């Protein structure tokens, strides 16, 4: 009984801790600037939609959300399309340099992004790709493909090899085995890696800030752009933040339906 109470207290603490910033952001987005800056903080206030009216008054925020959607969706899609066959090869075949390739995928995430910001900026400039969707999609692929390869390789490895051999005897070629056996059975891992990829691409700020100017600014860039030297319009920033969080939440909810555990149960004894 005591353990249960402690358990509940611990869980509540974690939930409050993680949700508080989120709640604060949503609350602030409905406050006036003076309510936001009030000290002590105001818990009960007259909500206003003025911040939302302001941010949608010009097309900057809505345009940025469209940009973010294009970049995040395409880079997620591409990283799944390119990453899953790579994961299949790493999970099921032995070839020379396999462990080196594996390490290369991992090491991609070891470099701090800021280290590469300047070289990437110069490359993009020379390639005439600054301020395009393409450059962001390409950069995000370098982050997302390793995520997909990691998670999905592990998922594919857990599929019993007997299934593949049964399919070979049934006359399936490699591509069919990949499509009909591995993709459906790897769906939970693919869904998880897609969520990670999407969230990463959606929230990424550094490269979006460095590589875009006016046309392709993504939502996080626009949210920070409200900060000027003269004022900090917290209401607008928080309203933009709330609007930014919505699509990721919806995407995660849709995809998580596929994260069914134990999908491979029943294949073998």
């Amino acid at each position, binding site marked *: 009984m005591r353990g249960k109470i402690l358990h509940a207290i611990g869980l509540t603490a974690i939930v409050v801790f993680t949700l508080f910033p989120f709640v604060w952001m949503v609350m602030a987005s409905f406050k006036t600037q003076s309510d936001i800056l009030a000290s002590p903080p105001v818990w009960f206030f007259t909500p206003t939609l003025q911040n939302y009216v302001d941010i949608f008054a010009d097309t900057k925020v809505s345009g940025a959300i469209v940009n973010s959607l294009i970049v995040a969706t395409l880079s997620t899609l591409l990283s799944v399309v390119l990453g899953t066959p790579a994961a299949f090869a790493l999970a099921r075949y032995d070839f020379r340099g396999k462990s080196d390739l594996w390490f290369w995928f991992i090491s991609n995430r070891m470099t701090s992004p800021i280290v590469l910001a300047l070289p990437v900026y110069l490359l993009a400039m020379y390639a005439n790709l600054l301020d395009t969707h393409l450059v962001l999609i390409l950069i995000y692929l370098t982050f997302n493909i390793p995520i997909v390869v990691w998670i999905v390789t592990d998922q594919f490895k857990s599929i019993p090899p007997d299934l593949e051999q049964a399919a070979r005897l*049934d006359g399936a070629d490699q591509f069919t085995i990949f499509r009909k056996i591995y993709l459906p059975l790897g769906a939970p891992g693919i869904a998880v890696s897609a969520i990670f990829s999407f969230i990463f691409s959606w929230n990424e700020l550094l490269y979006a800030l460095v590589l875009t100017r006016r046309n392709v600014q993504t939502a996080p860039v626009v949210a920070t752009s409200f900060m000027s030297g003269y004022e900090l319009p917290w209401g607008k920033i928080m309203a933009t933040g709330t609007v930014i969080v919505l699509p990721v939440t919806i995407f995660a909810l849709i995809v998580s339906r596929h994260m069914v555990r134990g999908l491979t149960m029943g294949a073998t004894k």
Partner: protein
Amino acid sequence: MTFLRLDNIKKNYGDASVIKGVSFAASKGEFVVFVGPSGCGKSTLLRMIAGLEDVSEGQLYIDGRDVTYEEPAKREVSMVFQSYALYPHMNVFENMAFGLRMAKRPEAEIRAQVMEAARILQLEALLERKPRALSGGQRQRVAIGRSIVRHPKLFLFDEPLSNLDAELRSQMRVEIAKLHRSLGATMVYVTHDQVEAMTLADRIVVLRAGLVEQIGSPTELYDKPANTFVAGFIGSPKMNFISAKVSSVSGTGLRLDHPAFAGGSLGVDTPAAARAKVGDTVTVGLRPEHLTVGAADPVLSLTLDFAESLGGSTQLYARQSTSGTPGEPVIALTPGRPELKPGDALKLGIAPGHIYLFNAAGLAL
């Protein structure tokens, strides 16, 4: 007519040699069982026939065609895996239809073939279920169903019953035997269970450490084992072995000395006597079920260690009466429930035709 032929098949993994040259032929419609202890290479051999393992050396023929380097799908074989290997995301119908779909057969034909297999295996009520909603025996049936829908030339079974409980196992054994009779197809079946081998096989291939020990019908292996390994492997409980010394040879008669024998020696009448000489070590093999309690002229004089009643019969464990090294216990299987208690003297007789003799190298004399 030879349907399946293995010609000096070898398999190496790097320096390790797993199959060391297996030659063997099966005719059409034959039920062949590969049997042997774990690690003898029987599953590897089966997977080489299926094409799931490369053949390192030698040739493999199915229906007169050299398929040594052929793709698995083009060999027209089907295989039932030990793990069943059902596709977990497909229902029973789709599991069985998968191979036909791969072969791009028309939908009507697929339906007809799957329904036919489902009828034979009594799976009609389960066609919409996913494998995880099936019991072990039902999964087993689906795995067999998947293998019969394509009408393959050759059926391969890799220890298909080892995941089932004892009752289901004997039930499925009968079903597989029936299936073989009704399809008339050539089947190769791998097991480590000698009871499955004895009951199912037309012919048994006994394997040990990558080599064939003996090939023959179940009764041949039982009556004329080529060596002590086969003699010990086939039959349950295991054959008793007594290592004796030849004390005299006369025409077709041999006299063998061992303290376990009644009177210290045993006379055997055998045409093989000519090949033995005084002083040779000969292994005498006696099957537990051939030993009789209370025979008029006993061959073994032992002391009972303990008795296990199996209800209808009794299994007796006995040791040499004389002091000194106790040696291997001798097991006898006798009908009924003899009135014996541990420590009693046990005289065991045997019919003359049931004594097996092996030379020092373990080969039948």
